[in-house]
């Protein structure tokens, strides 16, 4: 399963920089992600992705990395930020208990990746397809799959797929952005992105320009998700 990072940027140059240099830590300390990291004890700051898919409806830009491009970081079978905002019942827990719950369901990348995915969604084609389709798994919560871990009914009590989708988080330097597999943006913006990339790096980084061109998927995030679902389910 691939690493899918959706992002929003103010202009084409900023999009180009993400695609060339990789996602970066939000510079604003008051940004929600950085505040939540503090409350959950996640340090140092990370960049985030979902494994296999991303936001289920609409987005502007997204990039896809193969598993081999993630050389460090952690993995959790739900959206950690969601434990602060809306994943019940964890969102009602005091912060130290939230942090303990997240820590209990945190594994290390890349060494634990295969075992994690073998446990959930498993190699079974039907279960994998269900995962990619954001179907809610059977059971009360991830404690059903990992005995001995804290038991909370986060699957039973939530309807948002982020309660049962793997979140990956890594420090920016752990992501090999030169292994970019796909990226997408709104079709009306794409030509501007290419032109900007050429203006910025035409003279200095032609391998990047070729990579950018070859990995572009037209149609936006929804189309990319459709393609990823087919590729990964196969």
């Amino acid at each position, binding site marked *: 399963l691939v690493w899918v990072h959706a992002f929003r940027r103010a202009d084409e140059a900023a999009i180009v920089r993400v695609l060339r240099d990789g996602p970066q830590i939000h510079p604003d300390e008051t940004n929600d992600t950085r505040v939540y990291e503090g409350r959950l004890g996640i340090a140092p700051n990370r960049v985030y992705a979902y494994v296999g898919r991303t936001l289920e409806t609409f987005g502007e830009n997204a990039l896809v990395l193969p598993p081999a491009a993630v050389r460090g970081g952690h993995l959790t079978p739900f959206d950690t930020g969601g434990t602060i905002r809306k994943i019940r019942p964890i969102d009602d827990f005091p912060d130290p208990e939230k942090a303990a719950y997240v820590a209990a369901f945190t594994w290390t990348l890349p060494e634990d990746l295969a075992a994690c995915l073998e446990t959930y969604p498993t190699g079974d084609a039907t279960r994998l397809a269900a995962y990619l389709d954001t179907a809610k798994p059977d059971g009360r919560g991830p404690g059903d799959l990992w005995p001995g871990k804290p038991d909370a009914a986060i699957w039973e009590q939530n309807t948002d797929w982020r309660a049962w989708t793997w979140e990956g988080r890594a420090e920016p330097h752990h992501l090999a952005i030169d292994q970019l597999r796909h990226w997408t943006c709104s079709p*009306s*913006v794409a030509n501007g992105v290419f032109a900007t990339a050429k203006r910025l790096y035409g003279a200095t980084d*032609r391998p990047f320009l070729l990579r950018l061109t070859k990995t572009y998927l037209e149609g936006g995030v*929804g189309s990319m998700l459709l393609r990823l679902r087919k590729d990964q389910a196969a």
Partner: protein
Amino acid sequence: MAATVLGYEGNRDARSLVSWGAAAILVDGDLVNGASGMHRPHDEEEFRQLTREGTISALESPIILKQYRNADRPLVVELALTFVDEAGIKDVVPRKGLRGSSHERGFQVYVFADLDAFNAYRSQVATRVVQKLLDLQDETEGAIVELRERLLHAGLTLHAHDGVLNALQAFYEDAFGEDRTFALEMAKARVRDPLEQRQLECVHRALLAAEAALQAAAGAPPDPNGDHAYVLQYREGVADSGGLALRDAAHIVGSANRVDGFAGEETVRRFPFLRSPPSTQLQAISTGSAKLHFVPTIAGEPFSDRVARYLNLTVLQDIIDGKLGEAVEQRATAQVVKALQTVVQPSPQTVVEHRPIDASEYTRIEPETLWDDDGRPQPKGAEYSEPLVLLGYQSGLLQDWGKLEINIFPGTRIRLASDRDRDGNEPMGIDALKQRNDFLFRPTLFTLVRQRLASGRRKYWLQQVRPVAAYLKSAVITAIPSTFVHDAFVYRLDLAIGLRGDGHVLHIRESGGDTVAELEVASLELSGAQKWMRAFQSVCENLEISDFRSSRLGPVFMPSPTALERVLVVLQEADGPLDRDAISQRIREQFRPDVHVDVWTVVRKHTSHFTVDDGEVSLTLRGAQIARAYLAVERRSASARKASRTSEP
């Protein structure tokens, strides 16, 4: 169900003349992404927020879709009316799959049913944009440059992977003095389809040649011996005196003219943006050295004509070289085929060489396609199967009875000529069929011959067509498609077939023997045909796994075995159960050392094929039957390949 398109995914860039994206659809209170199909409860405030953030572009006037199914993948396209006007596409209307449209804020809005429908429309638009850009190439005003950039930008926004638009993009960058090689490399990287990539390269060369012709000295005639000319040279045979007799020269040139007419049609088919290529320019005939010189561009012509002339000549040289044998087979008349034979082989003793455009060396023409005395194509390495009588139904009629579309198995549709069989005669039964108005979806026996073309592709010829009726002595199925290997057949069967029960039961029995199947023919409509065809598939599957007396006809191209097939084969050929590591090891030994198969995944996914006992896997009865059926085809295919190799010179 009814649905409403509220907008589309993505940011409508205020500077852009064209925007498009997956439809944002309101269905039963849910907001649905038209591409991924994902739902979420619709929240108006959230929708407005997504619109403000540029994640969704909202339509001022939502468009109601009268018919919508969950499997639909609609998308929205907005074209600025200024673009519609400047590109001259007012008359380009979607031919199919249009689900809704409107005008708003100076934009034309279309909702297409799916990507296929959108692709058809944007190809039409891209063709017009290319025509306009080529026409503009002869204009020199400053404003033209801006118009050209606008049109190209809009065209590429609509169709980022179009080969010709990307060729133009690379060409303009050339013209701006940038690195030509890199510009072309970038353009090729944007185009994904191999055919479009070849088209891009052809058109790019044509654009450069047309540009070079313009830059050449005004009015100076092109050098017929220059590298850009296409030269045909004859030696021995009709040219054994070192030159050509006028009569032979006239015969060859006349034939070349006829072939050129066909090349013109083929050029427009391959490059739809060309209106009509000018007749190929024969610059010189050197009767002394028996050479014909054709030039690809003429300086004084409009730019678009120069491009067309160049492309036409490349198509002509490919036809002469035999590279377009399939096109000749399918579309050329007998007269064109004869003329082509005259050009490439005016007499058996004549050696014909040519020097393609931009090449420096002459190469001997050894066309991949040869023709017999009747002008019938006989591709080298062609193989014909024996006639196969298959049960199926006709599902379509194309080109006013020029072609039939038939179904011989679920998911297997074949389009084939209805006006000639493999020997050039009208297939038997076609005339009678034309008299009926109830031929569609009716159980029918089709006698087909499968041909393996030199290109490695396959082609079917219709020999006879015969709707199934009450029992007739000769109504017999002799072949069934393989359930396990696409394009393979079990044949030399002898299954009598007829309709019973007032035409509502398709009865199949071994000739003179037991009933094999009774299939209900619920109706003579598509749904009825699909139903009995599915039932027939299960009959075929049972026959294939139980009858090994009949012969197997392997596919024209045997695909690499799937993970399941590898595991089945290894276990079938093993003496007993094997554990996972042993299966993996044998797969690597038997197939390829670098092949990795996740054995447990395969075994868990196909529980009816395998049993697991104490970590060891063995085949169930059904698994063993399928393995045998697969191996029967695979071995037939391997022996056919071996025979084909040993028969090669």
